[in-house]
């Protein structure tokens, strides 16, 4: 019951290799999670600190499987008309007026039933991310930061995901040819309901190890020198151990490395590190803490 036919990798190692070719370096756990999500057709629920690469994973998974990538960014107040579909009312009115005007000009009687049927045509339906995901298969659907949406939205999402179909009263049922591979991410700002978690594969995404982080920096930023990549990875790793308010993730390490590279750095020296600290630390307290501990120390000098 593979969710995606065609280019589905045969085992987790193949998936990891394929992901690596797209520039995403997944560790064993994530590769196995991704493989099982494809193979069992279950949604994958990813949690982890901000900036560990949860969103990027879904994008890489879409590239690897050759599926379309659809993203639904959750926010408070998200409802069906923004997540699923909406009718394009202004166009419907224009359509109605055109029919009327034509009928009057030709001196004909308007067939009310036919007019109404033509009003609720597929072309007046605006597909929002969930409907897009159902209509275009194969597809990887990323439901980003589900914890930001209201909890009623979870129940609604659960229904769409388990059925892989929706019913539109005026049009009928729209079902996906192959169910989309769903990746849900959460930053744990609130606890997601158990009913949703139960139907998902759950994976906690860790910060990468030193070697993996160097490899990620090198893969994503080929222009950065190997020495600089190793310096940045080492310094970021030490920062994560400092018990900061916001420990830097991979995303921040990438920002930092490209900032340093833009300044022409080949290695990470304390002066350059001090002026670019804003790329990696996002709280004044954290920057002060690192400065007071000594930037040179952080660089392992």
């Amino acid at each position: 019951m593979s969710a995606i036919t065609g280019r589905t990798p045969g085992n987790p190692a193949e998936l990891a290799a394929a992901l690596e070719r797209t520039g995403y370096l997944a560790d064993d756990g994530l590769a196995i999670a991704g493989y099982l999500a494809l193979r069992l057709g279950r949604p994958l629920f990813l949690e982890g600190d901000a900036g560990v690469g949860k969103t990027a994973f879904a994008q890489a998974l879409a590239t690897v499987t050759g599926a379309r990538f659809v993203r639904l960014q959750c926010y408070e107040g998200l409802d069906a008309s923004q997540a699923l579909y909406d009718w394009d009312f202004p166009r419907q009115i224009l359509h109605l007026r055109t029919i009327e005007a034509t009928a009057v000009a030709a001196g004909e009687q308007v067939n009310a039933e036919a007019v109404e049927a033509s009003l609720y045509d597929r072309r007046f339906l605006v597909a929002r991310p969930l409907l897009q995901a159902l209509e275009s298969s194969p597809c990887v659907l990323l439901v980003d930061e589900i914890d930001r949406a209201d909890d009623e939205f979870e129940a609604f999402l659960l229904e769409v995901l388990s059925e892989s179909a929706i019913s539109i009263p005026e049009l009928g049922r729209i079902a996906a040819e192959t169910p989309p591979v769903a990746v849900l991410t959460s930053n744990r700002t609130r606890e997601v309901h158990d009913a949703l978690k139960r139907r998902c594969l759950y994976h906690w995404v860790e910060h990468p190890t030193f070697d993996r982080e160097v490899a990620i920096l090198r893969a994503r930023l080929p222009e950065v020198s190997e020495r600089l990549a190793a310096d940045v990875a080492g310094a970021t790793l030490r920062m994560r151990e400092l018990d900061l308010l916001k420990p830097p993730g991979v995303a921040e390490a990438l920002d930092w490395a490209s900032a340093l590279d833009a300044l022409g750095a080949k290695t990470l020296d304390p002066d350059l590190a001090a002026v670019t600290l804003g790329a990696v630390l996002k709280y004044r307290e954290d920057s002060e803490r690192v400065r007071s501990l000594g930037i040179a120390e952080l660089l392992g000098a």
Partner: protein
Amino acid sequence: MSRDVTDVLLGFARTLRHAGVDASPERMQAMLAAVDGLGVADPAGVYWGGRLTLCADPDDIATYDAAFTAYFQGGPAPVPRSAGAPQRVVTLFGGDVADGGDSDATREVEHAAASDAEVLRRRDVTALSAVERAELRRLLALLAPSPSPRFSRRQRPAARGAVDPQRTVSRMLRHAGEPTRLARRARRRKPRRLVLLVDVSGSMAPYADALLRFAHAAVRRRPMTTEVFTIGTRMTRITRALRMRDPDAALAASGRVIPDWSGGTRLGEAVKAFLDRWGQRGTARGAVVVVFSDGWERGDSALLGEQMRRLARLAHRVVWVNPHQGKAGYAPLAGGMAAALPHLDDFVAGHSFGALEDLVGVIARA
């Protein structure tokens, strides 16, 4: 998959359930499918197949690892999470007064008059008789603390407000495109999140029962927007336990999950743990945060001050409830209390039922 393998895996899932991970039959079935998909021969396949399907929380992962080692590699058996601390029920108020044979209690009941309610309101909860305690429990269960609502991003149809183009146009559509009455919308109101941090250290032990009952009343009032944590030497989330309907069952359940009953106090570290794991991610953002503590800090009070400043920046309003505040001649001079004081919006007493009733008002106005 062969029968033996299935049995071994199900046995493992049961071990895990015993250790406190919620491995429901549905999850067990998912595990079998996952392990089958990965191949049983591969130990990593068994490990990850189980972990991805049986765990649902970062806290589950350490338990899972321990159970996995114990079950498949014969390591030490994992300690059941719920049995981490001896099962303790909050029994601040001593034995139950329900057994009618107690002559003292019966006599007191006879003497109970309407004016007693007023006395009960003002008296410190630690100085109550058995009958008064039972009455207090009943009264506490009737409280309904809830913050004032805030405006949500969501809109709802309303009689007055901004024009709602979508509904106006769909109304026009029903009238063959003729403009009709304008539909209007206004912003919806949503309950603001309420976060309670209850100090369960030794110095607060006499008040713990009443405060946890207050917390239970708050959770019962708004189960989805109220969060309760206990602080002491550690930080523990007890919201789930308090969602039970019956106050006594809820208190017993929370007693089982709190590992640091009547222990020391490291408020700074516990508040930091709360902010790191929950608060900053969103639980404290825009919330009304109520800290129940006497501010007796054995750790570094500078750390507490720093963390309270951080909390004040995240929260909508920070209320500190100190039972001693209600006593004559009390001044907030204890190290921790003095450090926290500059970052508070409200500083109230919480020693009697009346004080807790007033707190409901403070929360509602916040």
